[in-house]
């Protein structure tokens, strides 16, 4: 899909599976967390800023859809794209696939606020991030 890029690639561990015999929902979130680290880099959020506690993106809204089960040992990858933005936020769409057949297993659209990590308040996107987001942004409605 145009505008989407690989943001995560890994596998499902046995300890991530619950009594229903499939990956528990909390671990879908862990994959998004890893994917977001890659998307931070893509949109120009410097890891040093994150590490030094200056700036970060924090999720303020999330819509998720669980499409198919995952089992222990399944190999998976995520594709992500920038689908929206505002003065203080960036919206990223994540799509998790079973890597064996590229079958869609999970989608999540997340809006994150750009934060000053000292004041703990949302602040306007930096010019550099705003420009990068504008370059990467795809039609969010069609990506839904």
């Amino acid at each position: 899909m145009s505008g989407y890029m690989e943001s995560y690639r890994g596998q499902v561990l046995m300890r991530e599976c619950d009594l229903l015999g499939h990956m528990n929902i909390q671990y879908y979130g862990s994959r998004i967390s890893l994917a977001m680290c890659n998307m931070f880099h893509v949109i120009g959020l410097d890891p040093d800023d994150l590490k030094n506690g200056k700036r970060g993106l924090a999720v303020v809204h999330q819509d998720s859809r669980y499409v198919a089960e995952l089992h222990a040992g399944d190999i998976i990858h995520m594709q992500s794209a920038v689908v929206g933005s505002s003065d203080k936020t960036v919206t990223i769409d994540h799509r998790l696939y079973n890597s064996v057949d590229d079958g869609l297993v999970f989608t999540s659209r997340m809006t994150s606020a750009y934060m000053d990590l000292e004041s703990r308040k949302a602040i306007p996107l930096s010019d550099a991030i705003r420009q990068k987001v504008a370059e990467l942004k795809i039609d969010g409605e069609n990506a839904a």
Partner: protein
Amino acid sequence: MNKVLPLYRGAVEAWECDQMRHMNVQFYMSKASDAFAHLQNRLGLSPAFIRSTRKGLRFRSIRTQYKAEVHVGTPLYGLGGVRDVAGDLITGFIHIFNSVNDRLSAVYEFTADYADFDTDTSLPLPDEIRVAAEELADPHPDCLRLKPFDGALMPDRPLNHMFESARGSVDVWECDQFNHIEMRHIVGYFSDAATHIINAVGLTREIIRSRNLGSAALDYYSEFHAPIRKSTAILLKSGLIGADGKIFRFGHNLIDMDTGKLAVTTTVIGCYFDMTTRKSVPLPEEFTSYPKEKLLKEQM
């Protein structure tokens, strides 16, 4: 056909960083294990196939070289491939890169065989897997190939002057779907041993902190002799092979206490570094003054 395969993508989580403020070796291993699962799929060993047959590839040996430390939040990606198929043994590699600067962070070179996960027996490589591996096999001259391990390797037998450096039992949550310990947790034992090694040479955490020192693994070579299963009682014995200049060498024997078998032998090369400059420094004198008669190299 592109024979260098995209096998991993992720990042360094905060809880994967240790007191040295960099990603701990066991989490490099967990990322390499993820990559290995994707490589198996490219050879025709899909997760569903592995689950249904309860057979798949397992590591026989792993050489790991840590090239550059990575810190919390760093995005990573992994590439890998097959270098050779000889007999029933596949030789391959996995490289973990820092996505920010494309710098190589760790190199895994491994041999793997096809095994029955219930009986733990090595099996002939199935024809279709062999064909797939041979099609992917390539010398990969553009992908770093490590020089042979520098120095003697730990023999797969007990040596004198090895001391207990870790002890535990294999928990359910440390195991894969075949009740084998995940590779990450094996490396975790070696990581845990590091503090005991510091004590064994006469150092304490307080001394290390007061000197602003950190320690880092540079090179690992592990051979896997026997499986380690759920609930197994584990003993790790370690010993100083040698210490000279900036480099120390340690040997580990991971023992399955239920069977008494030596499960894993590992040889480690490491160094100390200044926690501020992140540069290597001469070894603490406690290492270089360690009694020579206790060095394992005298028996190797």
